[in-house]
């Protein structure tokens, strides 16, 4: 029983990280109908930036804030420079462009920071809380992870539902032409969408780095998990992304605990295929099924 509780708690904490990356994929998909394959690379760069700043200044929170700001800026720049020319074109162009960016970012990171993964400090202790004399697999840093991701998701929901900017972003995503006819600067909304997505991604990078270390390729797996979570949630629903992340985190935690950790990636792929076969529109999508 205690093992089940541990696996559940661990699944929630991991699921929140998947949710944050899934959220970044969903934001970009909603805005521009592009899957950002470079998301793992982008959050890798911002986490490296955080690592360097923490190393030189000794302040975790300075690195944390700079990484988030760098994510915001990088998202906007990537949309302006790389994505803008392929927007509205055949989807394959965007796929190639983001894959190309991923390879570029990984190569650049290797040149600057080297190929050997380095450790990354957590914001708070990772030692589990003591509950009736037993340490559970959930500590202050996990609490921080859950709160940070829920906070980010809540802030995004508020932005989308409660502000004029959010309304314009939704309008631009649903119907760009109609939005332009209401004076909405649609391309500007795309830039904001990418910036927010990259912000969410860099948050995830900071949260997962203590566990996977920081290296040019250490975040590759997280993108696969996040993509599965996003598809599970319907790919265009932010709420779906969070719930999808949670469901996937729990599932993979149970698989890892009861069946062996070597099966985790396989299980993620099995879930992805199962969702695509049984309910291709995802659990929370507002649109019809996608054709692939």
């Amino acid at each position, binding site marked *: 029983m205690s093992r089940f509780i541990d696996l559940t708690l661990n699944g929630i904490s991991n699921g929140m990280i998947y949710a944050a990356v899934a959220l970044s994929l969903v934001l970009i998909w909603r805005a521009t109908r592009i899957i950002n394959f470079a998301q793992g690379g982008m959050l890798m760069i911002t986490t490296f930036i955080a690592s360097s700043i923490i190393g030189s200044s000794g302040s975790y929170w300075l690195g944390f804030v700079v990484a988030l700001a760098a994510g915001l800026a990088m998202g906007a720049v990537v949309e302006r420079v790389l994505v803008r020319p392929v927007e509205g074109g055949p989807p394959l162009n965007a796929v190639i462009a983001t894959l190309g960016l991923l390879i570029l970012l990984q190569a650049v990171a290797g040149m600057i920071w080297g190929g050997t993964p380095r450790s990354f400090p957590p914001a708070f202790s990772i030692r589990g809380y003591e509950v009736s004399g037993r340490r559970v697999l959930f500590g202050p840093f996990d609490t921080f992870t859950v709160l940070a991701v829920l906070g980010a998701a809540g802030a995004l929901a508020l932005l989308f539902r409660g502000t004029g900017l959010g309304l314009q972003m939704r309008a631009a995503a*649903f*119907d760009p032409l*109609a939005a332009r*006819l*209401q*004076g*909405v*600067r649609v391309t500007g909304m795309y830039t904001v969408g990418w910036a927010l997505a990259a912000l969410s991604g860099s948050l995830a990078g900071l949260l997962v780095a203590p566990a996977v270390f920081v290296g040019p390729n250490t975040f590759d797996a997280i993108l696969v998990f996040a993509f599965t979570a996003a598809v599970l949630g319907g790919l265009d629903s932010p709420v779906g992304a969070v719930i999808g992340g949670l469901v996937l985190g729990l599932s993979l935690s149970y698989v890892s605990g009861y069946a062996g950790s070597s099966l985790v990636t396989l299980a993620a792929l099995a879930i992805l295929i199962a969702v695509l076969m049984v309910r291709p529109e995802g659990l929370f999508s507002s649109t019809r099924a996608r054709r692939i």
Partner: protein
Amino acid sequence: MLQVDGLTAHYGPVRALEEVSLDVPSGGIVAVLGANGAGKTSLLRAISGLVRPSSGRIRFDGATINQDSTEDLVRRGLAYVPEGGGVIGELTVAENLRLGALWRRDRDERERTLEEVVALFPRLAERSAMHASTLSGGERQMLSIGRALMGRPRMLLLDEPSLGLAPIVVEQIMRVIGELRRDRGLTVLLVEQNARSALSVADQGVVLNVGRVVARGEAHELAGDEQLRHAYLGLT
């Protein structure tokens, strides 16, 4: 208010408009008539900046607007209600309306405009929280006109507002268009296949056929022109 001079426009290799000229005076209602494919919608798309003219000149308020973006033109008071309304079905009625005024800075002004629009179309207030996709055709058309009014335009480009609507709803919409002109001096360029109802509210009419102007004149003259009615307007 709006002058179009020798406007030619293409969709790819297809010439949609050829040397079209027309003039909409401030506070006037001009109807553009013609069959399917006559170039009516292309004309509106060119004026609103969605299609770039190949040659010719479009002036709004004295300034040439050939190269201006749609978003900027909306902000300068030239609103375009496309065929079918362009209502965003995933948003609620209230959100659609709010969207139409968001670029305006003054929050109080926006609130006041909303009250005016709701007074004009009380139906929209009843449907306020519903998704726009659940509206009937007539309600959609009201919403799209109301949404355009949220930006306090000086000129309205209306594309087939009567399309697919019951005669009684068409009558209601034409009446509102007439009222808007009378009460606030709104200038309207109205594109219609339904010549009879368009000419009932317009001062002047222009008839397009395969991208060219084939007739123009006072609305009541056009409505009475036997030959024209048979050739282009489908009236009997």
